[in-house]
Structures are given as structure tokens and as C-alpha cells.
């Protein structure tokens, strides 16, 4: 097993990784920016290194500062969490070149999946269904119009190097496409440093369903069930659940087999997620993208399988076999995750500020992965995720009941939060019925 690990991240995910490190006797090293000095993850790590001022470019995205911290602390591995440098192939290369273990897939796999156009082409060749769309970058607005004609409206416009829904928008006709293309290109340049754009067929009624995979290091890729992530605002996930209420056993078998094929096509190592769009009208699914890292919503998979995914990542990174029998993965019951964001619950605008009260729910079937506590300050420099409220029950109904109680019991004051939104979601007929798609939030907040 690894002797020590530097966690190149912050907030709830850093804390969560440090928790498993402690349980396994791995020495943990946190890195933090000046803005995060008081957060729990800094205190809970065995050692913490200040790496720079608050802006991400000067701290959590500063590869040189993080590698210097690894050298100084004698860390033997780096876990990148999600976001920041987690899908940066060049950083993964540097980590390995320093002689450290990289808790993630090979830099080659990150690179192959990082470019969405390349990933689509690769998946298509591997026999994974993809939506009609670009096979090469769309150079300008004129080319976008021609491509949209070929695909047929409505189309989705995306940054090829993108993620997190940034710069993504749907266009129903040529005029909207011009605007969508320019917006996508400007944001792609700014956020991802690459102006490459792709177009894809847009599904008006779709569920976002993803599959957790684990590349075991012995050549085997195992699927650990799906997660439904259709509750989204601004193309970003707000709540997730497993199993998906929209997936039949037959469909599940097909989805999981496709995800395994996707992982095998890039020789995938460790934890990864293959995202699909499920067309509600036809029941067909297409590959969306692959996230070559631990996913924010991984706890719901852990709650139903009983498998600690971070532990498996550590095992694979140290060349050891995973702790579960790949052939006897079983899902028990139903789990949901609610992302508690520092944002107003109506318009979903950011709401930084000092946390004056933080009392989180506890009890059977309740898990809270929190990045903050009372007295901490939520700054405008990072994403608005405060905590992930996760619930587990033997049935979906039981889990929904626990979720309602837990949302009501979560007392958080200071920044505005979206907890009232989650209460509305849990009271909505669409969500309760399980028959919802990616438009469910818009239906609740017209």
C-alpha cells in the first residue's frame, strides 16, 4: 500500500480522501491556498502545506507549487480529486516523472478522453454508440452552420476540451447557432485554453445516466452500476441517484457493457465514469464523455455497493488488486445525493459569505461529505459546493423519506443555500415519480 499521499484539492473531496487515507494508515498531506487555511481538510490532514494565494491559477492549478509541496513533505503519491489538475495529462506525466504514484489512469487515457471529439471517434470505433455529431473541430461560424445542417436541428454546441457544462448551449436554428457558437468559442478559450468546438445532436427529452467503472490493473474493467444525474441547473448536476428510475434491467446490462467497452478501449486504470445520454422518447443511449477521475457523486455508488472507491484507487495506484471480487459486485437498496451549494435557491446565483451556523443531519442511512463548518468563510474563488447530503434506504421510497427529513434538519446560516430547492425537488411529483429528465429543474423554477 502507499506510504503517503498528497491531496491536490480542497474542500469536501480533500477531506473525504484524507478520511480513507487515515483509515488505511496512509500519511496524508493537504495543500491549501490562503483562502482555505481555516477549512477542516487542512486541519484533518497529517500535514498541510500552504501553496499560494486564493486564485486557483496561483494555488490549486499551480503544478510547480504542488510538486514542490510533494517534495518537501516526502509524499509518495498524488491524489488529484476532481476538477483542478485531475484531468490534466501533462500534470499526471510530471507526477510520474518525479517518481511519485499518480492516483488516476495513465496520462495517455486522460489525453485520449480529454478531447471530446477524439473521445467520440474512439468510442465509435470501439462499438460504443455516439450521437450524430462532429468528427473534427468546427473551425468557424460558417462551418458550424454547415455541420448543423448535416446533423439536423436542434444541435448542442460544446467546447471540445470542456467540462462542467461551461460554454455549452443548444441551438434550435441558424440564428441561435451563431450566438451559441461565438459564446462557446469565447468560453472555451477562456476556461480551457482551446477554441475547438464540436456540434452534436441535441435530445430534447433526455436523462443523464453514467456508469462507474474500475480498471482493476489486471486488464479487467468492472462496472459498478449506474447513477442518474438528470437533475441539473446550467448543465451542472444538483442531485443524483442510483439505481436510475429510468433504467430497466435490460437497458442496465447494455449500458454497463458499453461502459466496460469504453474503459477497455483506453486501457483504463482505477476509478472512472462513462457518461451517457438516454433519449427518453426512444430508449436509446449515446456516449457523452468520460471523466477520467473520481466523480463528485461517487458516494451514492459507495452507499449501495459498500465499496470505498478511494480505497480501490489507492490499491490500483500501488499495483495491488482491488478489495472486492470483480464478479460479485452487488447493489443493495437505493441512494441519493443532494449537492448543497452556496447559492440562492431561486435564481441559483452564487452567495459567498461567512458561515454562522452549521448543523448537519445524522442518523441511519445518512452520510454528509462536508467541506466546511461553522465559522468558516465561503469565498468567491472556488465552486459553490458546501457539502453533499447523501441518503441510503432499502427502497427508493425509504430513501426519499430520509432525504426529506435530512434536508429539513440541515441548519445552515450565513451564505444562502439551495436547501430550499432540494425540499421543493423532494416534494415535486416529477421527482417522486422517478419519471423525470434533464428539464426537471426548469419545470420547478420556471
Amino acid at each position, binding site marked *: 500500500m502507499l506510504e503517503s499521499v498528497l491531496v491536490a484539492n480542497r474542500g469536501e473531496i480533500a477531506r473525504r480522501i484524507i478520511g480513507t487515507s487515515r483509515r488505511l494508515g496512509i500519511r496524508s498531506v493537504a495543500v491549501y491556498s490562503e483562502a482555505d487555511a481555516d477549512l477542516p481538510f487542512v486541519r484533518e490532514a497529517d500535514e498541510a502545506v500552504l501553496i499560494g494565494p486564493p486564485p486557483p491559477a496561483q494555488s490549486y492549478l499551480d503544478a510547480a507549487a504542488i510538486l514542490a509541496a510533494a517534495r518537501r513533505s516526502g509524499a509518495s503519491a498524488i491524489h488529484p480529486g476532481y476538477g483542478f489538475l485531475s484531468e490534466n495529462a501533462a500534470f499526471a506525466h510530471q507526477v510520474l516523472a518525479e517518481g511519485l504514484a499518480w492516483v488516476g489512469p495513465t496520462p495517455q487515457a486522460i489525453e485520449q478522453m480529454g478531447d471530446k471529439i477524439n473521445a467520440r471517434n474512439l468510442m465509435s470505433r470501439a462499438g460504443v454508440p455516439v450521437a450524430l455529431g462532429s468528427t473534427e473541430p468546427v473551425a468557424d461560424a460558417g462551418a458550424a452552420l454547415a455541420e448543423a445542417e448535416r446533423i439536423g436541428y436542434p444541435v448542442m454546441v460544446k467546447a471540445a476540451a470542456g467540462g*462542467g457544462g461551461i460554454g455549452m448551449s443548444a441551438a434550435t436554428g441558424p440564428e441561435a447557432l451563431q450566438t451559441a457558437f461565438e459564446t462557446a468559442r469565447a468560453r472555451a478559450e477562456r476556461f480551457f485554453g482551446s477554441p475547438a468546438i464540436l456540434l452534436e445532436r441535441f435530445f430534447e427529452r433526455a436523462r443523464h445516466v453514467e456508469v462507474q467503472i474500475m480498471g482493476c490493473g489486471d486488464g479487467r474493467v468492472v462496472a459498478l452500476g449506474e447513477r442518474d444525474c438528470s437533475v441539473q441547473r446550467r448543465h451542472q448536476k444538483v442531485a443524483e441517484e442510483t439505481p436510475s428510475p429510468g433504467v430497466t434491467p435490460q437497458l442496465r446490462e447494455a449500458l454497463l457493457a458499453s461502459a466496460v467497452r469504453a474503459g477497455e478501449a483506453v486501457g483504463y486504470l482505477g476509478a472512472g465514469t462513462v457518461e451517457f445520454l438516454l433519449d427518453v422518447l426512444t430508449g436509446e443511449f449515446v456516449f457523452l464523455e468520460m471523466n477520467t477521475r473520481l466523480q463528485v457523486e461517487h458516494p451514492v455508488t459507495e452507499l449501495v455497493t459498500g465499496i470505498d472507491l478511494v480505497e480501490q484507487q489507492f490499491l490500483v495506484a500501488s499495483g495491488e488488486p482491488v478489495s472486492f471480487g470483480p464478479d460479485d459486485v452487488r447493489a443493495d437498496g437505493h441512494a441519493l445525493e443532494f449537492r448543497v451549494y452556496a*447559492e440562492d435557491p431561486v435564481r441559483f446565483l452564487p452567495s*459567498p459569505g461567512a458561515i454562522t451556523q452549521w448543523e448537519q443531519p445524522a442518523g441511519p442511512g445518512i452520510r454528509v461529505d462536508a467541506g466546511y463548518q461553522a465559522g468558516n468563510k465561503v469565498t468567491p474563488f*472556488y*465552486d*459553490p459546493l458546501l457539502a453533499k447530503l447523501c441518503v441510503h434506504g432499502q427502497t427508493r421510497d425509504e430513501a426519499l423519506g430520509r432525504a426529506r427529513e435530512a434536508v429539513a434538519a440541515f441548519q445552515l446560516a450565513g451564505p444562502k443555500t439551495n436547501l430550499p430547492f432540494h425540499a421543493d425537488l423532494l416534494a415535486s411529483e416529477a421527482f417522486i415519480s422517478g419519471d423525470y429528465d434533464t428539464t426537471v429543474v426548469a419545470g420547478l423554477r420556471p
Partner: protein
Amino acid sequence: MAEVRAEMVANVWKVVASEGDQIEDGDTLVILESMKMEIPVLAEEAGTLTKLHVNEGDVVQEGDLIATIG
């Protein structure tokens, strides 16, 4: 005279309008950035943009004056 103020702590990412501009209700004046999100600050009435109180890269606090429309 109308004052446009920041609704939250944010960084000023882009200043879109210039002093002296004729502004319509709903025009974007500046774009703020907070928590990885771009937030356009819009004029809530028409008039002349008499004063811009922020520059790109500034950090504004909730309630800070961003622009004055005359």
C-alpha cells in the same frame, strides 16, 4: 439617477459598457465572476452611463457601487 450595485462578493471579469454610453434597460454593464460563474450586471433603467466605479480585475463586495446611470 440610478445606482447599480453588486449583489455578491465577486471579481470584475469584464467591463462591457463605457462612461458616456447611452444605456437601455437590460443592457449588460459589466460581467462579474464568482464561484466559477459569470454574472452579467444589467442596467435597470435607460439613461447615460455617467460613472463606472469598477475596473477589470477589481474585487467587489456585496452592495458596492458598480455604475451610476444619469
